[in-house]
């Protein structure tokens, strides 16, 4: 009897571990793909501006130098066609099914995946989930990757050498939608960069560390696609506070 239940619990634990490992891999894959997607679409967008200017110049040139305008026009068209191909490619690559997601569960998974890093950096975590949390409609892996990126950001902020108070507060709350707050006691965002940090390719890390700098811009997009809002606020203690609000199933 005792033996049996012990076996059972061991079995459950092994199963849970396997699930977490698989999940970690899935999330890592999603993160990688998302970063790639984000940098591609950001590059596409950045190329579009100069092309648009060229297009308006060509339109003006048409009356003065028709031949030149024609040559430029075909070059422009070719360039645009290439960009369009790339755009189609990005749009196709992403198809995760939408299903109800309990954010408390998703966040607990994220914390499990992040635990080694939290321990290594000596960070105290305060996890305050709401007792009852309505589920939201969304893409489960994408949402987990979103929160993992936000928690990773908080860990990065606290991992400055010699930083004393290392705490992260993670809380969920049911309001008009579901509110997730991630608060760190790090140095906060330097004044003047509050808007800049959302721009694709912006990073506070040196380039060689391999950070693409697509984290926050990607996060903002995932939240927007889920019909929610993302807010970056100064935390009361001087650190940084990220608020994510996602609509609940009934509201959506």
């Amino acid at each position, binding site marked *: 009897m005792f033996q049996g239940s012990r076996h059972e619990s061991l079995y459950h634990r092994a199963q849970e571990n396997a699930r977490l490992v698989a999940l970690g891999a899935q999330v890592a894959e999603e993160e990688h793909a998302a970063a790639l997607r984000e940098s591609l679409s950001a590059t596409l*967008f950045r190329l579009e501006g100069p092309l648009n*200017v060229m297009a*308006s110049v060509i339109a*003006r040139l048409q009356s003065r130098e028709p031949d030149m305008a024609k040559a430029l026009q075909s070059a422009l068209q070719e360039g645009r066609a290439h960009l369009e191909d790339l755009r189609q490619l990005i749009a196709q690559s992403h198809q995760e099914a939408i299903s109800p997601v309990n954010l408390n569960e998703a966040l607990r998974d994220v914390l499990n995946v992040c635990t080694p890093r939290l321990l290594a950096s000596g960070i105290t975590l305060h996890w305050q989930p709401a007792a009852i949390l309505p589920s939201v409609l969304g893409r489960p892996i994408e949402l987990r990757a979103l929160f993992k990126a936000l928690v990773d950001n908080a860990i990065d902020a606290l991992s400055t050498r010699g930083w004393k108070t290392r705490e992260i507060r993670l809380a969920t709350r049911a309001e008009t939608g579901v509110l997730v707050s991630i608060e760190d006691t790090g140095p906060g965002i330097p004044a003047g960069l*509050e808007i800049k940090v*959302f721009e694709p390719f912006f990073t506070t890390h040196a380039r060689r560390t391999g950070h693409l700098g697509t984290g926050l811009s990607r996060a*903002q997009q995932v939240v927007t696609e889920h019909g929610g809002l993302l807010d970056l*606020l100064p935390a009361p203690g001087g650190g940084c506070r990220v608020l994510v*609000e996602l609509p609940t199933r009934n509201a959506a």
Partner: protein
Amino acid sequence: MNTASMKAEFRANAPHGLHLLHLDALYGISQVLSRSLDYHETIQEVLRILDESAELGRGLISVLEPDGSLLVQSVHGVDTARLEQPVRYQSGEGVLGFVMEKNRTVILRRVQDERRFSNKTGVYDPDLPFIAAPIKVAGNLQGVLAVQPQSRDETFLEDRAHFLEMIANLIGQSLRLSLQVEQEKRSILEERDLLRRAVRHQHGFDSIVGRSGAMLRIFEQVRLVAKWNTTVLIRGETGTGKELIANAIHYNSPRARGALVKLNCAALPENLLESELFGHERGAFTGALCSRKGRFEQADGGTLFLDEIGEISPAFQAKLLRVLQEGEFERVGGSRSIKADVRIITATNRNLEAAVDDGDFREDLFYRLNVMPLNLPPLRERLEDIPDICHHLLLKIGDAQKRKLSLTDAALCRLARYDWPGNVRELENCLERAAVLSENGQIDEESIRFRGRERAPAHPPAPAHPPTEDNAAHSNTDTTFERDRVIAALEQTGWVQAKAARLLNMTSRQIAYRIQTLKIDLKQL
């Protein structure tokens, strides 16, 4: 007389000196307390004065936390932020805890003689005395103020303790106020964030309806453009929702926490436009009694939406170009250059290319603005969206009228046959009028009336609504065009003739004449 009595003699006169010292410190502290509401700054100053003027060093302030412990907030001469971790005392723990428990002043003649003294901050000299007084607010203990007199002389400890109690009482008031202010500030901030989120929901994509391919492409562009600080040019006919798109870009961008400032360039004469946009200094012109921030400065950290950008004069175009290129401008009548971090969204229904050809619009400015054009399709090119838009608008109008509104299929068919020169705005006005006419909330074919001409219907319209039928406009396309133009302008300005006249570059007399000759029904308000 022996030496002991001589000392006593000397001290008998000393209280006067000590009182003068205290009075001086008290004066300084009263000044500090009346100066600012910033509690932390105030406290630092008070502790400094205690040290410098009253010989009471190492002043320490601890405050009662919600969990019932005392948190050391500041110690004079010690940077509390650099302590390993926050210093706390439970009730009854150490001397501070003892003061909290008993709610009365404690005097130690020598720190090292008191076993209770825990010296958690590690800054107190064991050879010197120590005084701790409760800070009370309305009789309840809210904190403890403690100091270490900087001499071993024990004679006036009672006087000093009395003085310290006085200071603790004074601080109590300031502490109470600061706690109150902080709490109110927090609740206001929370409410502000809540309202801000509500506004962002309202102005996000939810308020733009459409499933047609053209609109989906627009959504995609808006989403992308929102991430960057690029200047955006929104183009589209009047009433296609250029302002909604500007809202969506702003509220889906990281600048959503900043302000979205709007300005209709056609609504103001040129000289006013300049001072409105860039602000003015005092005395810049008659009536400029004080300096004023312009819209550019108001939008710092946010977005500036310039509607009807095609209507600005060449002189003003030059000024705008400079701002776009250098990100700097001067107030009217000022010489100081002002920098503002602003994303600019412009909109126009004019054909800017033609305006450039005619020399009305600067070529270089056009290129700058046209970096990211968003072309909104007119309603007649996305008729398939009409049912969704109607549904959305009826919910909105029904909300205002506090009843449920619906549309019959026949009415919907009729709506889909119209050309909509005034686009979605005209559709909204049309539905609003129809809803007012409808008694039971059901909008049928009969209650829909158009101001422009209707496309050839599949079956003849019911004779009950002939206003568009016996219209001279039918035969002549020029007049029809004119009529559409006037109606569109009127729709845009909420049927205020004077404003519409300005949009069309007419005098109000001219527009009144056209309304009469073109037989346009005036909206009955």
